């Protein structure tokens, strides 16, 4: 253990990769009965991780070369799968994001989950997630990344289905796991393709080799596309996007942490991790860009008609992830990562604010929250508006900077379709986020107040008590911190860019490729148009939902078919349901089961029945009487003798 003490960097990294796991084990085995103890263990573990992450970020901020530690996890013949840590700028940034948000969410959960029967279990799963996520972030090789990627999926499954007595929750958990698994199969095959085509799964060596064209281009394209399947699954890209809205069945802090800020961003993170590898294959990049765009537009349209507050943010998460994938696909390494960073902040903020509303009013429906008096909760309302402004990309919030960066990358593409799509997305984003804000701020039909929302009195009571209770403040503090981060993060734009792009020449080159043209006059035109489009979206939302006398019915009401299309998620789920029912259950399962029962078992049983039947024919001689046995014996012996004699 001396080597640990001698190397504080290693010590800090190991702490991130072990403490939450230890905390999970301890909670699950020893302290399930002692709630506050469980929470204390889990939060102190994540706090230690946060400190370690900050320490690492600080000490290694000028490190010219990535720091790497590796030990052989398994050795099979000449294949060695290492376990270790890769500490470079990207992973340190992501590590810090994860640690910060996980810490805030766990503190927030003290309030949100107070009194829940599964409190300790909740914290155990949170620790599991933190462990898996952080170890994944600092993984030095694709296999370790894959392994913890899967574990993150497991944590997501457990947390989505946290209220397992609710059928829809367990259903959503299952759906999330199976759909991401579907993508992960591609990811796994992609890893094998790299292994077979190149032979080394180290992230650094892969990137280097791909940039230096030491891997056959076909291998790069194939494996990049396959690995991208994993991103599609994990980051809910088209066509595997429908699990994410369903995942909102989990507790809201979980949605904030896993299903918006960190876990779903893992796909984007993984892509940026091996960005040079992807960049070496223009075809893969084109596919990526396309998928990102489609996802972004589809999810935005879905968000425009949803009434469930968490659903709106879920769709928005999908569409923002689509933005990030677009950015990466268009070659904007920094833009993608930067948007990931800012998005993690403001989306967690939005979810946590929504969580406060949900906690107070026991409903997810934004109309009912508005009617219940949502605007009376000043802190979350203000914070949520800040988050929504950031999401829409309004100056000077963090979202503005990152979205601008993405638009810049898209503008640099020779084909302007992508830019138009991006701008359209920005417009829709502003529209649906402010549709939500206005619906809560300016509720309609107050006359139906009591009828529509029974138990209001109780809610008011809870609201009053909550306003000053420790639980409320446990929730309010993290929200305010996140709002603060959202407010100021954008101004560190340039610093972050320096920090990240100092990473290595490989990334640098790709970056020039993408953003080089973004500056100059065109840049300002672009900036202006994007912001004005966002403002236009807000104004549009104001006209339909905000102003006095507005019907609070979106323009899509007038096109019921389109609305139904959007509300039903473009019937993607129906398609899956149909496939599952007809192909999996009705097709293969049915066929194979019948085959098992009828053909295989039928054949075997047939043989048995034939034997038994034959036995019965003979068995009238064998009714237990010696004489009938004798007949056969005698005749048999006689026949044998005759056979030999004649």
């Amino acid at each position, binding site marked *: 253990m001396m080597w640990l003490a001698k190397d504080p960097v290693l010590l800090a990294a190991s702490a991130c990769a072990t403490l939450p796991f230890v905390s999970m084990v301890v909670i699950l085995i020893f302290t399930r009965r002692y709630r506050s103890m469980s929470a204390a263990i889990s939060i102190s573990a994540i706090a230690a991780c946060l400190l370690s992450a900050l320490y690492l970020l600080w000490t290694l901020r000028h490190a010219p070369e990535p720091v790497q530690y590796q030990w052989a996890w398994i050795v099979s013949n000449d294949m060695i799968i290492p376990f270790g840590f890769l500490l470079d700028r990207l992973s340190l940034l992501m590590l810090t994001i994860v640690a910060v948000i996980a810490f805030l969410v766990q503190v927030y959960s003290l309030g949100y989950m107070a009194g829940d029967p599964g409190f300790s279990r909740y914290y155990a799963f949170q620790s599991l997630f933190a462990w898996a996520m952080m170890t994944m972030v600092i993984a030095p090789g694709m296999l370790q990344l*894959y392994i913890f990627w899967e*574990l993150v999926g497991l944590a997501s499954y457990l947390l989505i289905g946290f209220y397992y*007595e609710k059928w829809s*929750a367990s*259903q959503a958990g*299952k759906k999330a796991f*199976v759909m991401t698994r579907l993508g992960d199969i591609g990811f796994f095959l992609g890893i094998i393709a790299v292994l077979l085509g190149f032979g080394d799964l180290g992230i650094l060596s892969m990137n280097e080799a791909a940039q230096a064209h030491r891997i056959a281009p076909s291998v790069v394209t194939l494996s990049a596309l396959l690995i991208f399947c994993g991103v599609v699954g994990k980051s809910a890209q088209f066509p595997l996007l429908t699990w994410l809205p369903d995942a909102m069945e989990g507790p809201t802090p979980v949605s904030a942490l896993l299903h918006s800020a960190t876990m779903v961003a893992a796909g984007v993170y993984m892509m940026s991790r091996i960005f040079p590898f992807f960049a070496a294959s223009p075809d893969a990049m084109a596919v990526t860009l396309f998928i990102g765009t489609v996802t972004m537009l589809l999810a935005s349209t879905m968000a425009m008609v949803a009434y469930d507050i968490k659903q709106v943010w879920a769709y928005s998460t999908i569409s923002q992830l689509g933005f990030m994938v677009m950015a990466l696909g268009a070659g904007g390494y920094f833009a993608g990562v930067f948007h990931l960073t800012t998005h993690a902040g403001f989306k967690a903020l939005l979810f946590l604010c929504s969580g406060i509303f949900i906690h107070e009013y026991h409903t997810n429906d934004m109309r009912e929250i508005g009617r219940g008096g949502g605007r009376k909760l000043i802190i979350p309302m203000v914070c949520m508006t800040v988050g929504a402004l950031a999401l829409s990309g309004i100056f000077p919030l963090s979202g503005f900077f990152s979205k601008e960066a993405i638009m810049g990358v898209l503008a640099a593409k020779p084909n302007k379709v992508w830019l138009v799509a991006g701008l359209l997305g920005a417009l829709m984003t502003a529209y649906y986020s402010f549709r939500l804000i206005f619906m809560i701020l300016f509720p309609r039909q107050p006359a139906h107040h009591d009828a529509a929302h029974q138990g209001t009195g109780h809610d008011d009571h809870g609201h009053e008590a909550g306003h000053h209770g420790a639980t409320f403040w446990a929730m309010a503090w993290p929200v305010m911190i996140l709002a603060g981060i959202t407010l100021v993060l954008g101004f560190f734009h340039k610093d972050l860019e320096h920090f990240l792009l100092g990473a290595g020449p490989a990334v640098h080159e790709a970056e020039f490729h993408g953003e080089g043209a973004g500056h100059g006059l065109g840049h300002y035109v672009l900036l202006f148009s994007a912001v004005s489009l966002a403002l236009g979206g807000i104004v549009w939302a104001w006209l339909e939902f905000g102003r006095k006398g507005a019907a609070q019915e979106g323009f899509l009401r007038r096109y019921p078919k389109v609305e139904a299309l959007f509300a039903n998620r473009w019937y993607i789920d129906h398609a899956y349901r149909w496939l599952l029912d007809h192909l999996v259950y009705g097709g293969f399962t049915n066929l194979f*089961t019948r085959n098992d029962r009828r053909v295989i078992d039928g054949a*075997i049983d047939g043989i*048995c029945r034939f034997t038994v039947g034959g036995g019965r024919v003979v068995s009238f001689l064998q009714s237990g009487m010696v004489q009938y046995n004798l007949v056969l014996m005698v005749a048999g012996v006689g026949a044998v003798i005759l056979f030999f004699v004649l």
Partner: protein
Amino acid sequence: MLMTAMEFAQFPVLSVILFSTILALVVILLIPDDRPQLVKQVSLGFAAVGLALCLYVYFAYDTQKGGLQFVERVLWVKSLGIYYFLGVDGINVPMLLLTAVVLFTGVLTMWELERRVKEYFALTYLLVAGVYGVFMSMDLFFIFVWYDVSLFPMYPLIAIWGGTRKEYGAMKLTLYLLAGSVLILPGILYLWAVAGAHTFDLFELQRMGFDVNVQRIAFLMLYLGFGVLAGVWPFHTWSPVGHVAAPTAVSMIHAGVLMKLGAYGILRVGMTLCPDGLVYWSDLMALLATIGIVYGAFVGLAQTDLKYVIGYSSVSHMGIVGLGLATMTVDGINGAVFQMFSHGVMTALFFSAVGYIYDKTHTKMIPELGGLSKTMPKASAFFIIAAFCGIGVPCMSSFWAELLVFISAVKTYPIRGILAVSGLVVSALFMLRVVQKTFYGEKNPRWEHIPDVPLSLASPRIILVGILVFFGLFPRLILDVIQSAVIPFVNSL
């Protein structure tokens, strides 16, 4: 501790392990009928001794040196060349450990048995003696004899202590397995006769080498014969039916250890003696294994009986073993042996979890259950952990095994490998479906009065979970051992 390895080498550990089970059998039979508690204690004692010895063998096995260790070799019948030949290498060391663990936990799991306790444990020990015998013997004759010894007690164990359709299940299982051994015996005798050297010693026969055509015929016979026990598609239908019918601990031993016997037989007898036959038939093996993986998962989707579900998952997982063997690469066989070990532990956990649920609710039909997590969280947790292991969640031991097998399978048989990997989605779907329908959902008032697992009954499951996670986190501890035998084995192919 101060005793050197040389000194200990004089001590016939393997024989002691083997004959301690037979001693246990005799001792149990000598205990009077009216003292069932004593029977259980004696069984547990012998199981613990066996476990301790197997652990000793496992950790004393020198991976650096490799090869066959703890060898005991005595000529038994000179005219036929039958040797009493015991030994362990990296392939059967984990299997011995698996057997000991499953036996130990199986005895603990059946602690509440009340009907014909003495006979039950006596038969169990007979079964385990056969299993140990097959795993340790390096002489074809003894392998076959012990193999049949291990098959015989299955019939009474299922037919007397079993559940659903026990006579049918027992009969089907017995007939299938005997049909398998009917193929094995001529296979072995054929090789013995062709060799003409009057020896049943596995390694002498291996050194002799056989003609390619002989190998092809013999390998097919051995593969199909042992394959029946390993649940190779399409000879798998005995396994779900048999598991459903069998009592809990028998299912544990049966699915956990006995099925491995089949795969082990293919590896130890078939592949060692007939490498050319293996090369010829490996395509077929890979095909059947892939079908088994995908097919088992799909059929599992349609089952409504918990034990059927596990039975079909076994078919699927044993398919992974078969696929690993068929690749003929170090990674693949490493993975296959590792999968044999971890699947054994995993199914044992599965069956013991289901066993408790069945004992208390008297049903294992999924539609009747539901919401069990509320009433028995611990019992449910064990099943759910096993299900995760079955899905192949990382940091559980079976993940590593599947990883190795799939990597080498995609390398060797791209199409079949990809198909098999895709089977993972279906297996995830069907495991989660079962977990959801059985354990999640509203609390079911019917099961409200049921107590959760007491610690005494939970202990075997805790041991099994511990093993799964331990080897999942530190796979090298087992993989290095396996590898020490597999690398020379593959080189000799």
